[in-house]
């Protein structure tokens, strides 16, 4: 199978690589950019473990080809912390036990990073709705929700839902 030369911009760094056009963005990031923080839990678009942010949108990187990401700004879990300093969201996951085996965690972090960066404030219904895009088998979600909720509060993005 022929390969194609592309340049990807990931977490602000450029990677000049050669990929098969059929290679997914997830595999490209993992195998060719050395960014193995993006995980694969299903490779058919259901679990969300592979979620990355492409041009400010959360994307399932198992459903996109590497070559489609050329010229776009890609963000992965490796870009969240500033050296050893965790992002407020990562710190909140740590404080609130938002992970157990850690396999789903990069996907949830990227999804929630996108959620917290939006202009719109977040309430409980929106939080559950957005986070139900991804699967976690260990935590029962409770502490993931809590971690994101507390991070949103810290960032002034949280609104209490109107009582039913």
């Amino acid at each position, binding site marked *: *199978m022929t390969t194609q030369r592309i340049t990807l911009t990931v977490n602000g760094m450029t990677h000049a690589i050669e990929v098969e056009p059929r290679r997914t963005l997830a595999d490209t990031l993992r195998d060719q950019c050395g960014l*193995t923080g993006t*995980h694969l839990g299903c490779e058919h678009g259901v679990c969300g473990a592979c979620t990355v942010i492409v041009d400010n949108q959360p994307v399932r990187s198992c459903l996109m080809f590497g070559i489609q990401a050329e010229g776009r700004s890609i963000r992965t879990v490796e870009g969240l912390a500033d050296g050893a300093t965790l992002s407020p969201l990562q710190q909140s996951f740590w404080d609130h*036990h938002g*992970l157990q085996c*850690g396999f789903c965690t990069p996907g949830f972090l990227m999804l929630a990073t996108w959620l917290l960066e939006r202009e719109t404030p977040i309430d409980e219904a929106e939080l559950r709705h957005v986070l*139900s895009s991804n699967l976690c*088998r260990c935590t029962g*979600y*409770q502490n993931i929700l809590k971690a994101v909720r507390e991070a949103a509060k810290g960032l002034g993005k949280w609104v209490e839902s109107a009582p039913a």
Partner: protein
Amino acid sequence: MNWTGKRLPRLEDPALLRGEGSYTADIAIGARAVRLVRSPFASGRIISITPPAEMSAGALLVTGRDLAGLGTIRPTLARFNYVAIGQPILPVERVHFVGQAVAAVIADTPERAEDLAEQVMLDIDPEDAVADLDAAMAPGAPVLHPEAPGNVLVEGQLRQSGCDAAFAGAAHVVELGIRSRRQNATPMEGRGGCATFDRATGRVRLTASCQMPHMLRTGIAELLGMPEADLQVVAPDVGGGFGQKMALFPEYPLLVWLARKYRGSFAWIEDRNENLIASAHSRDQRHVIRGAFDADGTLRGLEVDILSNVGAFSCYPVTCGVEPLMAFAEYPGPYKVPAYAARARGITTNTCVMAPYRGVSRPAITFGMERLMDRAAAQLGIDRVALRRRNLVDSFPCRTAMGMTLDDASYIEAMDRAIDAADLPAFRARQAAARVEGRYLGLGFAVFNERTGYGTPAFAARSMGIVPGYEVVDIAMTPLGEIEARIGASPHGQGLRTALAQLIADRLGVTPDAVRIIHGDTDRTPYGWGTFASRGMVIAGGACQIAADKLADRLRVLAARMLQADPAGIVLRDGQAFAGEASMPLAELARLAHQRSDLFGSDVADRRFNLADTASYDPGGTFSNACHLAEVEVDVETGLVRIARYLVVEDAGRLINPMIADGQVHGGVAQGIANALFEEIIYAEDGNILTGSLADYLPPTAAEIPDIEIIHLETISDASITGAKGLGEGGAIGAPAAIGNAISDALAPFGVDITELPATPARIRALLRGREPTP
């Protein structure tokens, strides 16, 4: 400082949060890719396997014929009419289930290996298959293994004297049949392995997403007839297991064989479809339960008939007896059962192999017992709390019908706490008001105990050929004063690195971050059994505690020399050794011990200055207990169940890290809810599997799982030296019963109740069709 009992954030987390974890697929990058060609038929004779017309350079096809002379995966059990059957690494003659690996294609990238695998021509002559219990047990049914003519692989039978009399003299006999459908443990990371040959030493390192690395090493070496010392097994970061990653699966010996034969690196990373169809399933059981009750509700006798669909082969090392025999031994749970009769059979079918999954049989037996209690309460006209109160074990220790000892626990107190929290009268009022509006609310609970932290004695009683049990810990203080504890257990998300460090820190007077827990590497850890069966905190924890105490004693002896005091008077605290006012840092003591042993005199201790000790712990086991309570609303038009409230009163003894304990409960309950309402592996009659993707097999999301309230009780039992009882599985055990009872309570006006799980909308609608509520 007391670290035990603190909600300490986990030491594991920062790396995982930064995406710097190291899972098997991460390590496998660059290795030659192995793709398995799997059987499309449930049963059939292999005629031929033809390689692709054009194999790319360096590509390989491996079939069962290439592995001639190697052993089969053949675990044994010395009792219960167990029939040992062997599972070949790759079959030569017959296939036994859809998804069974029949050949392997190797190429330089996963994509190319997949391309080639699609071009492999399998000529298989299909034969009649049996996919479910009834088909496999029907007279004249096709026989899977000639060694087991009636497709029964294991059978336990027991009838205690007094059982006949109990039933003959019963005021009421309450009978119930239940069905638990098949589930897949579904860790988010599938299985996978990477075997790398080291040309300099001739050794192979197998990195595998597994729960029992030492056992895997022994099993593979035996199968391949290679020196065990030439194999290192590493469990790196493992993305969940829940029991599914305990077993020795054919893929792992295949990888090691490839690495040795071709002197290179070979990796197989399971995809989700393979995980769903060909890793391991569980929970496929049917029970018939009969209870003999006095007029006042006292349970006089219990009779159960257990059928477990164990799939095509027997999982190694625990065997296919693991589900039926656990149900056989533990059915009475926390109840007083004066006379017990049980029959349990493991039936082989042309389906994926059964293996332990969180709770093993206990979700199903708790569902059976707790549904029996609710049915009996209705039939006898006794309040269901009162009925349970009458029958729950209330004095300890208590010897069960099967000879197990129930240690101190809080069966009745846990129930009472849950009932209090539920505010039953208020609920009944809401329920009545809702019914008037045509809305159906229900409240259900489940009381159960959970045998946890059991070592060799418990496994030996099962008569398995391989008897797991003990855990060993090697502890050492380095010359620079850090503590390393090497454990045979192999955590994969349970936070053992943190919790064990908390335990050790308290014994040695240091902070947890001064303690490194080393695990998951057969080259660097003592032989041990791994992490499963809610044993980590009890057994590895107990061994850590004993090892730390031994090290503390050694430090006291040496510190006493330096401080010229009596060892008994030395206190280890804040990283220092104190003798009254005088003190010295442990780090200084460690350096002197290692590097200035001349200072201590020739008579001190046994002159072992490396500050290392070993301890083993092998307890008989303890019982955690809990009461789960669920409030649901059932939409009778659609059959949809919404969980309005979920409460767990859990007694797992002393909590080492309550934050981690809560997380275990949350995760367990979510899997139990999945078992109760959503997840089902479905086979067609011909043995084809219909749930091969996450679009068909439905793990719940954050939208379906409610917040879970937890109340902890802490009964300290002397059956566990740390006081901790295990709790990894409890969440998954209680939820199916609590939810089944809640739905049944909601649907009581229709005269139906839940006996089959998962209680999907279709099943609930089938129960309600043509029925009207009685007011």
